[in-house]
């Protein structure tokens, strides 16, 4: 019997800490485990006993990359529990803040975490020597996203201006003009970035995905929507637990989420693109078409192209929202507590993020449940890595490890968020 073990003990350029363990026996891949060893974070337990108004500030702390996603999903759940629907102006302002996070997070992943993989650089710093214009543009884009977050959310990381019902202070239209100027400055680069990503050398891979994403009737879903899937699901947030289940697996501090019935599924850019492409405005679609992005993309490595399309869209959408901006007055709707349970969700940059809270009559949180995108994708990531190993068994351990890490990074996993991520172990015997 020949046995081969590959061990990647600290995955680089992913958010958080995790490892990958692959065991191969006699040329057959026996086991692939994405081990998330970042310690459990207990946020759901911290939330118990806190006031319903504290939820956006506490959940923002789950992630420094996508705090707005946590805030938005949590507020939607609390407002649902209290039976309050926020005014259109508040919804528009939340979407604008969320566009800032999509731009910032996607720019970070596309240019600093994932692009170096395809071009043979160990880091974005090495890439900067040969492609300074790309890295300069990426920094400009990321900065524009940060500015948008600061002007709408009060600061760039862990925004402090959002509250249940709305915001503490609505930015004045003149303040948003500063964000518009920076976005305008990054606009051409954002459009060109689609062709840049589409021109990267991709492995020729097709995989079978069950796509899951939120969908809106009139726009590309970001901050709200109904959940739809390539398997025909069409549900509201209260029905999530009827169709999805989390299970504990021994090798990970993150839970694995599956469709009830056991099927693995995918959330994030590839799912959103496959399910909501028809919701993108014509100029964005034209740019994606010109870059050769197929209507349903099943090559996980090409998710970087979809991220670039979404980055371009988020920038254009932010400019549209600023142009139409009317400050909410008052800045927040009253959300008096009532006993009940509420569920909320939104599209974090890396995929669907669902929250559920039970509160009592004075607003005290009795129970909280948070299902982040990476725990939903974790089982699907393992399946992709297995496919990579099966295709490339002849490669040396170093080369195989690189391919596996690249596959994992395609999913932009946020390990800190999911614990409750990476090192590679390849065991070939």
């Amino acid at each position: 019997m020949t046995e081969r073990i590959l061990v990647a003990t600290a995955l680089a350029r992913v958010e958080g800490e995790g490892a990958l363990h692959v065991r191969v026996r006699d040329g057959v891949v026996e086991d692939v485990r994405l081990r998330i060893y970042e310690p459990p974070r207990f946020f759901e337990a911290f939330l118990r006993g806190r006031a319903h108004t504290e939820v956006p500030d506490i959940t923002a702390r789950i992630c420094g990359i996508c705090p707005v996603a946590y805030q938005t999903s949590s507020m939607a759940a609390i407002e649902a529990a209290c039976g309050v629907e926020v005014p259109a102006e508040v919804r528009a302002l939340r979407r604008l803040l969320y566009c800032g996070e999509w731009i910032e997070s996607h720019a970070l992943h596309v240019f600093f975490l994932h692009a170096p993989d395809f071009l043979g650089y160990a880091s974005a710093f090495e890439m900067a020597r040969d492609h300074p214009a790309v890295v300069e543009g990426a920094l400009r884009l990321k900065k524009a996203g940060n500015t948008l977050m600061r002007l709408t959310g009060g600061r760039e990381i862990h925004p402090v201006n959002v509250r249940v019902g709305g915001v503490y202070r609505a930015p004045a239209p003149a303040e948003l003009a500063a964000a518009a100027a920076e976005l305008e400055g990054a606009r051409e680069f954002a459009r060109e970035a689609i062709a840049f990503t589409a021109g990267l050398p991709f492995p020729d891979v097709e995989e079978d995905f069950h796509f899951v994403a939120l969908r809106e009737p009139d726009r590309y879903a970001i901050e709200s929507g109904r959940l739809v899937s390539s398997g025909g699901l069409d549900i509201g947030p209260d029905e999530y637990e009827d169709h999805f289940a989390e299970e504990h697996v021994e090798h990970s501090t993150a839970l694995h989420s599956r469709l009830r019935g056991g099927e693995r599924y995918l959330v994030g850019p590839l799912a959103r693109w496959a399910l909501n492409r028809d919701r993108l405005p014509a100029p964005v679609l034209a740019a994606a078409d010109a870059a050769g992005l197929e209507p349903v993309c099943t090559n996980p490595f090409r998710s970087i192209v979809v991220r670039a399309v979404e980055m371009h869209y988020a920038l254009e959408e932010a400019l549209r929202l600023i142009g139409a901006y009317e400050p909410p007055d008052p800045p927040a709707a009253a959300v008096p507590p009532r006993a009940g349970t509420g569920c909320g969700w939104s599209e974090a940059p890396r995929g669907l993020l669902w929250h559920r809270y039970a509160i009592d009559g004075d607003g005290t949180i009795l129970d909280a449940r948070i299902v982040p995108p990476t725990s939903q994708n974790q089982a699907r990531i393992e399946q992709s890595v297995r496919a990579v190993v099966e295709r490339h068994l002849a490669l040396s351990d170093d080369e195989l490890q690189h391919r596996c890490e690249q596959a994992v990074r395609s999913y932009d996993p946020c390990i800190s968020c999911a614990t409750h991520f990476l090192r590679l172990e390849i065991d070939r015997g």
Partner: protein
Amino acid sequence: MIVIGVGNAWRRDDGAGPAVARAAGGVSTDDPARLLDLWEGEPHVVVVDACSSGAPPGTIHRGDAGVLTHPASTHGFGVAEAIELARALGRAPARLDLYAIEGADFGHGEGLTACVTAAVGELARSLRTAAASPSRPPPR
């Protein structure tokens, strides 16, 4: 001359850089990725960080990017990476002086340990003196 302190004041001695910046009239950040923006247009920049190289706590290191590894940074982007990126993009200041203060305690909480407090005072004083007489190089 601008003094930029890098560190997280909520992680004890990691707040050494911000403490020096505060005392020397500079600016602070806990995110080294922001350095490129903070020093834009500044010909002479002093960056003060904390470090954990094994030297006695309170030691003031000068000019060696090798010690500028951020023990509390989990994001893989420290001062050394920011400088590397800036040089690749031609956005490094004409003159960049690096200091790192050896920390003792990088645990959770506010407040510097005594030897780091003393080192912060010493470095801030010498930077203020250097700022007042820009023709002289800052002391080693």
